[in-house]
């Protein structure tokens, strides 16, 4: 079996697995939303019954639940998430199209930043194992992992926006400065985790026989680290990137709210509070799809980096 057909077959199998996962996700979220008390048209003042009935008929809420479920499945198959219940005149597709690029920008930047900083300090800590640099890096990493982003964000805002006045406290207008605080907040725990992962696997790799053998070749230390040790040391980081991407997505829900960024996360929170059935469903399915696709890409990356998986063992 050649390398290419091996990867293609692997990819094909994974893509097929996407369908049942999404189906289960849609089913669970659909019924959970309906079980939750309240509905999209509940208000302080009750609507007159015939208006309520008109509204429900307009959105097919008067049909039996199971019929609504299959109607929804049919829509999803056509990539149509329906109209938003709350943002009148907007379809869910339009809201996603508007919010996602914003979320993607801060999520993507946070991921790039996490990889650059996390891997660098992780390698540095591994090379200075059990010395002050190592302890400092690992100390900060522990902090980064344990302090939740809803604490980090207000502290950063207070220090850098309110007291120092260097950066805007929130919002989506203005230049690149508006990106700094949300991206840092989002990236901090990911940086911390990647640094710990990189350090651990780098230390293990540096103790392996093949690194000793590489040193025996008389290559400069730098070449041994970057040419021989980095690739195997990064494998655990790569396989963690799937969950990391999911973490960035869910993290952005909170971070977007705090920094008043009109991303997908903001719509999601608003939709859940308003019982905006279609919006929540749409965003959940979209997130689910995104996470599965990201995991899939990470898988391919892993296979590409690890020749033993690429060609099959033996």
């Amino acid at each position, binding site marked *: 079996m050649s390398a290419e057909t091996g990867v293609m077959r692997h990819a094909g199998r994974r893509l097929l697995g996407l369908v049942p996962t999404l189906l289960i996700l849609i089913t669970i979220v659909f019924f959970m939303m309906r079980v939750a008390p309240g509905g999209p048209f509940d208000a302080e003042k009750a609507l007159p019954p015939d208006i309520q009935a008109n509204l429900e008929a307009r959105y097919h809420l008067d049909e039996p639940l199971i019929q609504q479920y299959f109607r929804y499945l049919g829509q999803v198959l056509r990539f149509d998430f329906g109209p938003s219940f709350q943002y009148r005149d907007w379809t869910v597709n339009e809201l996603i199209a508007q919010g996602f690029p914003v979320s993607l920008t801060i999520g993507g930047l946070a991921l790039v930043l996490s990889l650059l900083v996390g891997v660098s300090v992780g390698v540095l800590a591994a090379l200075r194992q059990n010395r002050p640099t190592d302890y400092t890096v690992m100390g900060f990493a522990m902090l980064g992992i344990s302090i939740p982003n809803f604490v980090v964000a207000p502290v950063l805002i207070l220090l850098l926006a309110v007291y120092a006045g260097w950066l805007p406290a929130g919002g989506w207008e203005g230049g690149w400065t508006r990106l700094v605080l949300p991206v840092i907040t989002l990236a901090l725990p990911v940086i911390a985790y990647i640094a710990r992962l990189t350090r651990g696997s780098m230390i293990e790799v540096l*103790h*392996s*026989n*093949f*690194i*000793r*053998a*590489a*040193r*025996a*070749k*008389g*290559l*400069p*230390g730098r*070449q041994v680290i970057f*040419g*021989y040790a980095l*690739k*195997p040391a990064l494998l655990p980081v790569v396989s963690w990137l799937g969950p990391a991407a999911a973490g960035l997505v869910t993290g952005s829900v909170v971070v977007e709210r705090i920094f008043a960024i009109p991303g997908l996360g903001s719509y999601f929170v608003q939709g859940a509070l308003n019982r905006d059935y279609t919006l929540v469903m749409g965003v959940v399915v979209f997130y689910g799809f995104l996470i599965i696709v990201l995991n899939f890409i990470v898988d391919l990356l892993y296979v590409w*980096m*690890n*020749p*033993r998986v690429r*060609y099959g*063992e*033996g």
Partner: protein
Amino acid sequence: MSALLEVRDLQVRFDTPDGDVEAVRGIDFDLSPGESLAVVGESGSGKTQAFLAIMGLLAENGSANGQARFHGEDLMAMSSRDLNRHRGHDIAMIFQDPMSALNPYLSIEKQMIDGPMHHLGLGRAEARAHAVEMLRAVRIPDPDERIGHYPHQFSGGMRQRITIAMGLLCEPEILIADEPTTALDVTVQARIARLVGDVARRSHMATVLITHDLGAVAGVCDRILVMYAGQVVETGTVREIFDSPRHPYTRGLLDSIPRLDRIDDTLHAIPGNPPNLSDLPGGCVFRERCDRAFDACAEPPPLFDLGEGRASRCHLEDPS
């Protein structure tokens, strides 16, 4: 003939949670150009650590003392930058386990061209061509295509031959091979020994064969250094050691080689275990396993020089 490598009072110790372990306790030997030296001993005798120390490759908790003069320059006193001019270039080391000594994430080509590009200043294409030739020399079939493969795509024997080819790439003056054939079956062992012997003769390369198997040394080496508990206990030519072993430990090792030419009895083994290197007994370290121990053995014996390169660390040799 002046020595290529002169090792004097080489000591290696490891700092472990259970206290200091003295892995190598002062060994001396010379290696001449073209000479083939076997270093024989049980696992834990310090044979591998001694050569890792010379190569500057000890684990982080290890430290080494003494001298190892290569062309008169002390390798032990060199910075790792200076050491890198020799490592892999004129002193090469082949490691015990070919499964783990090759980097599983890099192609053989990448692992073979780096050394020659660095030490010999070859270009990528030249280095590749050179590596392909070397693979051909160790009888890897279809080397031009196989060089692009990864370690796991080769059999154990082929991997071992690849590591040997790697060691020979820069035509070293000394090749240190640590149990290079233990993982292989006997026919392959013999073929590899012959291959290394050929290269050594052709380029006047000195070889050091580190092994626990005295039987594997017979047709291959010139001289033997027997190590026990971090010390040299006997030296001599292969012929001398096999024909008239002087130290009781060497005799025990020879007796424990299975022989097909005698029907007589069971396989001999040396009773007991090597001493704990973090808590060595006083006196001769072999005393407790020795069938000829006597009163004098309560004092540690020096290495008695028996003339013509022979020596034995045993009170039985005491001329007084």
